[in-house]
């Protein structure tokens, strides 16, 4: 598995985690000139933007370590752009970080309302 495939597998694992929590998929890998949102999911009128960080094997680091303050700022701006473009008008918006460890089966740790 090359690193792109690992990323895609991680995002799939994160999505199925959200689906099991009763969310529905709004967008996956939404792109604009600023960058990319990994996952956007919706439950009732709560819209969640999720940054997925995937790590191979039993690493010592957690994926969330890669989410730096500058990355957080960037994700907020991307979310604004996404809301401008879409016709969704959710009453609440949340940013999550999903840390996915690829073992025999992917293990998803969800940091809800991360920032």
């Amino acid at each position, binding site marked *: 598995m090359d690193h792109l495939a690992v990323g895609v597998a991680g995002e799939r694992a994160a999505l199925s985690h959200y689906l099991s929590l009763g969310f529905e998929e709004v967008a996956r890998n939404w792109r604009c000139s600023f960058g990319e949102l990994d996952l956007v999911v919706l439950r009732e009128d709560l819209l969640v933007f999720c940054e997925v960080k995937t790590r191979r094997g039993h690493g010592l680091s957690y994926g*969330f370590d890669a989410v730096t303050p500058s990355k957080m700022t960037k994700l907020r701006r991307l979310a604004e752009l996404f809301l401008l473009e879409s016709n969704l008008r959710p009453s609440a918006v949340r940013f999550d970080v999903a840390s996915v460890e690829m073992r025999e089966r992917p293990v998803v740790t969800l*940091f809800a*309302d*991360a*920032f």
Partner: protein
Amino acid sequence: MYGKVTAVVVIGVRGHLVTVESSIGRGLPALCLTGLPGASVQDARERVRPAVESSGLEWPLRRVVVNLSPVTIRKEGPGLDLPIAMSVLAATSQFPTDELPGYAFAAELSLKGELMPTPGILAVAMAAKRRGLKGVVAPEANAAEASLVEGLEVVAAPSLSAVVAFFRGRWKPGPIERSSPCEGALLNAVDLAEVRGQAQARRALEVAAAGGHNLLMVGPPGSGKTMLARRLPTILPELTRDEALEVTQLHSVAGLLDGGGLLLARPFRSPHHSVSMAGLLGGGTGLARPGEVSLAHRGVLFMDEFNEFRRDAIEGLRQPLEEGRVVVIRAMGAVEFPSSFMLVAAANPCPCGHRGDPGRVCTCPENRIESYRHKLSGPLLDRIDIRLSVPRMTPAELMSDQGAAEDSATVRARVERVRAVQRRRYRELGFTCNAQVPGPLVRGCARLSSEAEVLLEAAAETLHLSGRGFDRVLRVSRTIADLEGDDRVTATHLSEALAYRADLENREPVHVG
């Protein structure tokens, strides 16, 4: 997900209770410290998590907010590591918290989760006792000082895991080895009996100790000034328990207590003349540390090469000498340290040190001697009652066997008797010794005999005694009379006191003895 633990922050020498709250909530895993933590407490953020994890406990993978209350005081010092760790562990319910409110916590943590020796534990224990807590949790290395506070349970633990096991009811601290209260004399490595000759200086030392007078010794290098000063604490009265606690507390805050318990010997501090203002009077960045004047509290501050000290450092001695305390002003407020000490200053008679020495020739130019002496004069000298010339001993004097000199214990017994007389005399005035009596009162207290009155009048005339010089002579003669057991100051007492005023303004040093 909430936990609350009591910690103690030491400001000056006083402990202040601080509540350490933890809340565990949503967000990326992080430890956020609020409530005016100083730089040394911010440090704890990186230390606490590894300490918890290597103790076999769990650090929550959540956003942890730790608040230090009250937020009005800046928290400094490493003692907050343990309370922060315990409050996070309490918030995550990793041990039963029913017993938690009765204890105060203070200890620095290592990355392995050990409790490291922490300064100021005695002040912590005293604060816990004052606020009616049941016990204190402290590092094993500080057990002896914590146990000095009566009626307080001391949980002296080696590690964080032991502290948690204690609250889980699976570990009990071992009995604390109290350092045996030894005789004060045994703690002093030196004795007055070791001083050869110098009968005049020995006597002056005894008078100084008896009346609590500050002392200036002027003499050539090698005449024994340092040796004499070093032995002054050994002839001072033994510390009372309360005094010993004050001394121990100051040394504990300075981190100078080597695991021992109560300090019983009077301190002797001899700072080098290059000492900074902060080093001498207290201060430093962040946590204000007691300076040399406070480490010498209830003991002796010896300043060798007195006129080599910085002018502002010498001027800074005025507050501690007058008030027995020193106030260090910081941006965050004033910190006060007790500093009641006997000052012993020593100086050479001139820059080369040989002026007035019969066996040597002084090579200093007149103008240099002038400026050298000029540094000695000034308002501080007014606080020094006894000024003594210490001549160099001749080889013959050093070799001669004059029989065993009196040892410190014998002299101390006399000093203690005289101190008791003074305490009784000044009971209503609130002084403890002759040196504390201010000028206007000393004339009433001295009780001169009629011949002494006549002599004093003559001396004031011929020696050009200033008003303050006059009071100094009276104070010292009162002490001499007390030493002799006389109610009245006689002409003999007065003439001895007049001899203890080596005149530094004078070109020719006055020779004594």
